[in-house]
């Protein structure tokens, strides 16, 4: 692996920015497009990961460890959030008998 990485040419940081933004926006599109709450949740995970990627990229390019530490904590929070979120989703399914996000419309004018 070391010699593989020895013949390295620099990937400019803009590429990482592009990649990360693209993934983020795909995530946004997923959240807005799909009605299935599970898929919406997964798109949110995608968004989180896009951000993680950018953090790590900046951290590596600037040679500062804070970015990676932050990614560590993001992962922690994401894990906790998924646990609770999925629990909620299961409860909603028990009530409405569907995972359609359009089914939850009572909190309106």
């Amino acid at each position: 692996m070391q010699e593989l990485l020895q013949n390295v040419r620099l990937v400019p940081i803009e590429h990482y920015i592009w990649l990360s933004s693209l993934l983020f926006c795909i995530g946004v599109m997923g959240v807005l497009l799909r009605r299935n709450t599970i898929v919406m949740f997964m798109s949110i995970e995608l968004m989180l990961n896009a951000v993680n990627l950018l953090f790590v990229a900046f951290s590596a390019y600037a040679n500062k460890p804070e970015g990676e530490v932050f990614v560590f904590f993001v992962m922690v929070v994401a894990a906790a959030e998924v646990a609770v979120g999925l629990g909620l989703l299961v409860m909603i399914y028990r009530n409405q008998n569907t995972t359609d996000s359009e089914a939850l419309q009572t909190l309106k004018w």
Partner: protein
Amino acid sequence: MSTTEILLLVCLLAPLSGAGLLLILGRSLPKAVAAVFGVSFIAISFIAALLLFMQTSAESAAFKINLFTWFSAGKLNVDMAFRYDQLTALFLLVITGIGSLIHLYSAGYMHEDEGHNRFFGYLNFFVFFMIMLVTGANMVVMFAGWEGVGLCSYLLIGFWYKNNDYNLAARKAFVMNRIGDLGLLAGLFMLVNKYNTFDFEALQNAVAGVQTGDAYLTTATACLFIGAMGKSAQIPLFTWLPDAMAGPTPVSALIHAATMVTAGIYLVVRTHFLFSLTPATLDFILYIGLATALFAATIGLRQNDIKKVLAYSTVSQLGFMFIALGTGAFATGFFHVFTHAFFKALLFLGAGSVIHALHHEQDMRFMGGLKKKLPLTWITFLIGTIAIAGLPPFAGFFSKDEILAHLYAKNPMLWGVALLGSLLTAFYMFRLYYLVFHGTYRGDSHSASHIHESPWTMTMPLAILALCSIVAGLIGIPAVFSEHGHWLNHFLGKLIPVHHPHGISHATELTLMGVSVTAVLVMVAIAFRVYGQGKVVPVSAEEETNPFFRLLADKYRIDELYHFLFVAPFNAISQFFGKLIDAQVIDGIVNAMGSLAMTLSGMLRLLHNGRIGTYLLAMTVGVILVLAYNLIF
């Protein structure tokens, strides 16, 4: 503080304390106690005024008390200051003296009235303001007193507030006064604008160098006179005074005969140094006074209400006072105020005694032959009538003749007009006297059995006032009789420089006197012929056949004219603004605001449709906008 200053403050504040006590505690006090309080506070004031007077002579210097600085704005400084000089001395004697007599009278007159305590409270309040008016050292304090007496006049005219007509009369008096006050304020503002002070002494010094006939000063004094017009009931602001007879008779006696209505004359006399510099205004005053004197006298010929006749007579006599002022004889104007206060108060109180005896009957058509039943009232009323007619040596003769003499010196033709006014005065006053006391009683027999003389609280003031009406004229004996007899001119000499009265010879003066006395006697005889035997019974205005007399009985329909010219258009404008502008336009705008908010919120609430997809989309769009904004700007 010296004794004189303390006395002045006692004189000023005693009625105020009385008013405060009676108005705050009034309901819980028994009537007798309230009456005693009411009379004694004014009596204290009178004693203070008397003591002050005894220490004052013609050479005494005026003194001033400054209680505190009321306000100061820029270079202008107005203090709550009071001043005492010879003019104030005499006015205070009149106000507190006649005031205490009328308070005593009211104890008897208002005895059965349930508002008895309130009445004394208001009356004390009035005396306080009147004293404030005449002792004010600057025009602002005087104006405060001016407004205060207007207020008390309103409260007292509408004293029997359950009758709406009386309330309307009170309102009319107040509003008409206010119209005059507008002129007064304009005059005050003009004066302070130029001379930067309200203080009388400072003003006198400030105008020392002004030329006679200065246009600015003429306008200012004319405005001041408009204020006097309102307060002292001259043409055209006189119609409130006859209507003010709706108040109880002691009120008419005190306020609308002896004191408040003389405030206008006080104003002119106090600021005589301004008026002497503006002969145009003085001419204006003269003509207005002359017109009023004659006009009101003609109306009095055909009135049937005993108090209305006396009211018009007051308006007429006030006209005479202004005639005196208009000829530049300021001290003479005050002289007539002095004598008029006594006999007019006497006449009003006498009328009140008659009204009281007849159980509040005021119409002369139902009176007559009361000579035997009310002897004390009769004799004092006769004295008062002779005094007002102007027969020597009673009070009215000296003051009235001095006015006529001054007027003759100015213009003999105007003297003729004024003489006609005084003759008419004699005629209608004696008409009044004969209709009430001579002939046979024209009322119903039931009340005839109840007629009895009034209690001592009412007859003693009558007697005292009658005595004063006889001797009051002696303070101003003209030079033609006695070289140093004119005590009044001498007393006021330091304050108001009195040049040799009129410059007409002694012979002319005696002739004028003779002419007027003879003419008055002739009028008395005519009145006796017409009314004295009790054959002619007056008729009401509707039954009047002669059109000229009908006009007089209807008071020349001035009230209707004012209603047509001023009141009706004003009401129409108010209706327009009230119904159209206020209710529809302004309320419409306000309501439109409300419904606009409702409509907008009705539209905006549709954003909350409860669908998560919409919310998420909105959030994304928001983020885009924020980022874009940061990028672009």
